[in-house]
């Protein structure tokens, strides 16, 4: 099953009640599949064929506030178009689950890079980056539990075309197991209740609410705290999932051959899966290297990276995104996470694969080698490298 179909199947198993989505390459086959299974009666849901992504998120907010379990999906400019509503969903503490099929932004490129979702990292959404289609399915299922418990929305990001349109074997669970794992408590989630009227999202100007009542800033604090609490609950929920479905993803990061690694590559999405090939090749030649996959980008796995920093000599942070004037997001945030660590490892940043430029295991090997060379020279820092630009442009 392709990555997109896996996402649609996960929504079906989660028994979502409202889908509000707008087509955009390369997400389109998710919504096409959902439309089909809803019309065939395989999924009892209302599909609101909204006229824009901004409306898609607004409709998801409305439906979720009215107690329904919702699902949506988008990419690139679609995600950017709904940006203001992303903030609205998270601060209203609504458990919206969205699949983001990563695609480059700006005119016009339909291939993968992470600028779309990474640029939304401040919106208060939990962010997952998956490496294969099974993980798409499993993570969407887990997200419902995580979001409905933490009351924060989740986005599950998959590489456009690389996963969305590539078929991989998919193991489907038993519907009863999923029903038990993520039962939907409608009454508990319904905020718009005619028997108990309340107003959501009214004027929250700081300082007018009185003693003992949380104000604007306290609400943001609570949301941040909820995001922080996920660091623990993620493992518990993963364990519950493992008991029902037999697969486990651990916590915020996944380590590959890092126990005695001197140089570790950090990446997100399919690059993390592929890094294992470069690691194996170099290990066969006797080099002590490892790879880390940032399974979760929000909340940022600062603690996990600090722990690794105690024994690793160098990090090669591979970003398939860039914040102009600041650098790759994982690079910047890793350096911030490692601030204050007594024995600072070398941290190098590589910007790769924007607009779908191919990144091969051979490229990843080169990145390891470049990092090792800088480490040998005894340098403590170096400018971020835009990897594999056309030679004439450098």
């Amino acid at each position, binding site marked *: 099953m392709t990555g997109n179909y896996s996402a649609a199947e996960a929504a079906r198993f989660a028994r979502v009640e*409202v889908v509000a989505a707008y087509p955009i390459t390369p997400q389109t086959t998710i919504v096409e599949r959902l439309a089909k299974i809803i019309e065939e009666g395989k999924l009892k849901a209302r599909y*609101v064929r909204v*006229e824009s992504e901004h409306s898609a998120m*607004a409709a998801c907010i409305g439906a979720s506030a009215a107690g329904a379990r919702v699902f949506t999906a988008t990419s690139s400019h679609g995600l950017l178009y709904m940006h203001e509503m992303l903030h*609205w969903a998270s601060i209203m503490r609504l458990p919206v689950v969205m699949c983001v099929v990563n695609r480059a932004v700006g005119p016009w490129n339909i291939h993968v890079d992470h600028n779309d979702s990474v640029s939304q990292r401040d919106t208060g959404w939990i962010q997952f980056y998956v490496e294969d289609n099974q993980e798409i399915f499993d993570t969407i299922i887990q997200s419902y539990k995580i979001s409905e418990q933490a009351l924060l929305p989740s986005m599950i990001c998959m590489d456009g075309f690389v996963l969305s349109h590539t078929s991989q074997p998919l193991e489907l669970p038993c519907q009863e197991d999923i029903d038990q794992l993520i039962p939907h408590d409608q009454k508990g989630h319904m905020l718009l209740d005619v028997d108990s009227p309340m*107003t959501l999202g*009214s004027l929250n100007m700081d300082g007018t609410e*009185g003693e003992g009542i949380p104000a604007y800033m306290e609400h943001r604090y609570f949301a941040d705290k909820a995001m922080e609490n996920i660091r623990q609950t993620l493992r518990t929920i993963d364990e519950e999932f493992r008991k029902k479905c037999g697969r486990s993803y651990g916590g915020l990061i996944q380590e590959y051959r890092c126990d005695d690694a001197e140089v570790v590559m950090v990446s997100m999405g399919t690059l993390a899966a592929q890094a294992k090939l470069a690691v194996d090749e170099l290990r066969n030649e006797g080099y002590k290297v490892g790879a880390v996959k940032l399974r979760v980008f929000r909340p940022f796995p600062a603690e996990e990276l600090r722990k690794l920093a105690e024994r690793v000599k160098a990090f090669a942070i591979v970003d398939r995104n860039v914040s102009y004037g600041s650098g790759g997001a994982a690079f910047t945030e890793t350096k911030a996470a490692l601030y204050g660590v007594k024995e600072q490892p070398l941290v190098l940043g590589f910007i790769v694969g924007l607009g779908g430029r191919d990144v091969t295991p051979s490229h990843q090997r080169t990145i390891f080698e470049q990092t090792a060379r800088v480490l040998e020279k005894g340098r403590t820092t170096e400018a971020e490298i835009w990897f594999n630009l056309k030679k004439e442009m450098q």
Partner: protein
Amino acid sequence: MILGLPEEELVLPGNSSCAGCGGTLALRHTLKALGKRTIIVVPACCTSVIQGLYPNSALNIPTLNTAFASAAAAASGVTAALEARQVDDITVLAWAGDGGTADIGIQALSGAAERETNFLYICYDNEAYMNTGIQRSGATPYGMRTTTTPTGKREHKKDLPMVMAAHEIEYVATACPSYPKDLHDKVKKAKNIKGTKYIHILTPCPTGWLFDGSLTIEVGRKAVVSGSWILFEIEKGELELTSVSKNLIDPEKRIPIEDYLKSQGRFDDLTEEDLVEIKKWTSHQWDKVLRLQ
């Protein structure tokens, strides 16, 4: 019951509306017609502020505040959730200003209408972005002074009721709180129709139109009796004039438009040419309406 209307106030007193607010009066009557089993969706507009400050709210029904452009979209979501649970005795009301309807919100409204969303969308029109200090909107009439049209708007008012009629939705109507029974009956009728319903209420605003707060009802009456605002309803494509507008087809029966315009400071700078243009346009509005009759 008083005057055939439920006594209970669903818009609670002590809210933040300006003294004499036509919009709040319109909402008060709308909710009397719809009752407690109503969910209201409010985008950024005067009503966002009129609700008062967290943790108190002036609206005694479940209320979802949403971003400016998204009233109809959020309402579509609420409607979908109720349908998914097979709940059919709760009315979903999108209550938006002219800004959130004619300008930034028109895309979502058009989409919701085309999808035949089962909800009631009401635009309460004070003819400018009043909440943010009287900036012009697409619904601002010709010649009105606003902060972004200081010498008077040079374009005519966007004809939203006709835009919605062109969507061929189940029910389109115009109203004014100066005629509360007409407003009440239209809302009540819309409540019992399945599909997309649109009601456009002209709500006089003392603050932005520049008249004394005690004259809100009188200004609204003048708007209708001068022919500037036509009260009608369109059900399944059939248009019928309602209330006093029924008797105003003959321009001789109307009061002079000057009576309406001169009662408000916002039209203080109108020239003779402006007046001619306005009269021409008003006549044109009547032609459009009568053609559909």
